[in-house]
């Protein structure tokens, strides 16, 4: 069993959170509020250090001549806080407008290329790139799946006849996708429980090596 006080605190807080599975109780609520409070404190310090100290104060104190332009970034940051005032809240629109415009400018071309153009290319060239008969079948299934799913979401034509058939095949592919997604989700959730049990059995109780 661990002699480290921090491990004991972590273990007891873990058990406090687990106690909610039996029923709502004050120990659980205490642990929950503690988590919210500690997280808020941690993030405020981390954001201030990383955003203000590291990005502005240190570079400017080292070489003001080369880094004076950072003052504009700092000023824009301060203007964001004017949203807290009814009288001066309008001033926050300027940094928001800058951020939205700049964000859209560099977001749209990159995302379009990575999420649309390269995906289309990857799908269409999959059969040609297949190295074995099994890979070829897999590639054609992929192409059929993509096309039938796109038809399912195409609502400008009534889903009957060949379009209806393709649409129903699209539903099957979607169901397979949801099933795989659910399986992965279960795996993720169970892993979180495994992580806590590993901590309790290994770090705290020392039952497992």
């Amino acid at each position, binding site marked *: 069993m661990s002699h480290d006080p921090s491990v004991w605190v972590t273990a007891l807080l873990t058990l406090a959170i687990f106690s*909610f*599975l*039996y*029923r*709502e109780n004050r120990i659980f609520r205490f642990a929950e509020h503690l988590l919210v409070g500690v997280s808020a404190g*941690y*993030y405020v310090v*981390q*954001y201030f250090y*990383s*955003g203000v*100290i*590291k*990005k502005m104060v*240190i*570079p400017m104190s*080292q070489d003001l001549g080369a*880094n004076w332009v950072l003052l504009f970034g700092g000023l824009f940051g301060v203007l964001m806080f004017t949203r807290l005032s009814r009288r001066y809240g309008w001033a926050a629109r300027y940094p928001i407008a800058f951020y939205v415009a700049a*964000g859209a400018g*560099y*977001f749209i*071309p*990159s*995302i379009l*290329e*990575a*999420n649309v153009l*390269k*995906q289309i*290319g*990857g*799908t269409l060239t*999959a059969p040609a790139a297949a190295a074995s008969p099994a890979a070829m079948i897999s590639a054609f299934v*992929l192409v059929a799946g993509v096309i039938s799913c796109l038809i399912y979401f195409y609502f400008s034509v009534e889903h009957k006849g060949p379009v209806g058939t393709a649409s129903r095949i699209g539903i099957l592919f979607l169901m397979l*996708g949801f099933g*795989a*997604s659910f*399986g*992965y*989700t*279960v*795996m*993720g959730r*169970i*892993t*979180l*429980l*495994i*992580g*806590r*049990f*590993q901590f309790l*059995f290994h770090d705290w109780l020392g*039952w*497992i090596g």
Partner: protein
Amino acid sequence: MSEIQRPAPGSAPGSAPGPASGPRGSLGVLAALDRRWIYLAMALAVAIPMLAPVRLPIVISKEVEAFHREIEALAPGDQVLFSFDYEPDVMAELDPMTEAILDRLFAKGIQVIAMTNYAGGVGIGQARLEAAARRHGKTYGTDYVFLGYNPDWSGTMLRLGESIKATFPVDQFGRPTAEIPLLATCDAYRDIELLVSIAGSQLSEFWAAYAGARYGQRMVSGNTAIQAIFIYPFYQSGQIKGFLGGLKGAAEYETLIERPAFGVRGMGSQSAGHLLIVALVIAGNVGYFLMRRKGLLQGNRLRAVERKGRS
């Protein structure tokens, strides 16, 4: 225990409405089963294989093999950008792969430039990096560096293509990056051999867009299980060269590098938990259809149970 068998309605999270005049027999027991029994069963399913380990065969998937190939293709002295894109909520899933990858990189003599796109990733990144460096006797500044957290992940990813030193004027500890020997000849994606993103969110996809599509940066990723399914299209289109999905991905990679650790040890619990969920899904569906066939869940009765559940 008697309280577990007959809970007061609504007293526990997710306790069954428990209709007094509901179905009887085994179907009735199934319908009124308190969810706390399921929690207990899941706890046992996860705990028992941990206390009495069972070594299950681990089949290596194509994407993990591809990930392994990318790491093995690196030569000593190559530089890798390693991004800890996760926070404590998914440590259980991503820490095993992080530790395995860092161990492999340091063992191969690869230089690691680490950073995080999450404020909550600073403590995790620093601790994992320092622990791995200690295990391999690596020196800060020449073998590895931790740049810390930079606000605005999209701007950070894009600007790293122009200059690491301009994006991170100082490292996590306030030391000017211009004075760090490791960064003397490495200042942008063009100098980086491989990008490794370990992410608990969509950030691997954004790395593929901003560093991959825009700058042609070669990359691999490690992702939570929930996120892994969204990575397949990027892997299939060649934008992400290989990836590890969840604890299973970590277990496969640990097996490949012959370093069994937390990932491999967790597979027994993982399998038992999965089997339990499958059994519960089947039991729930069989019970539902049997009750519907017997007319026990129809019309007003079903709506009454639902109304009672909502209230």
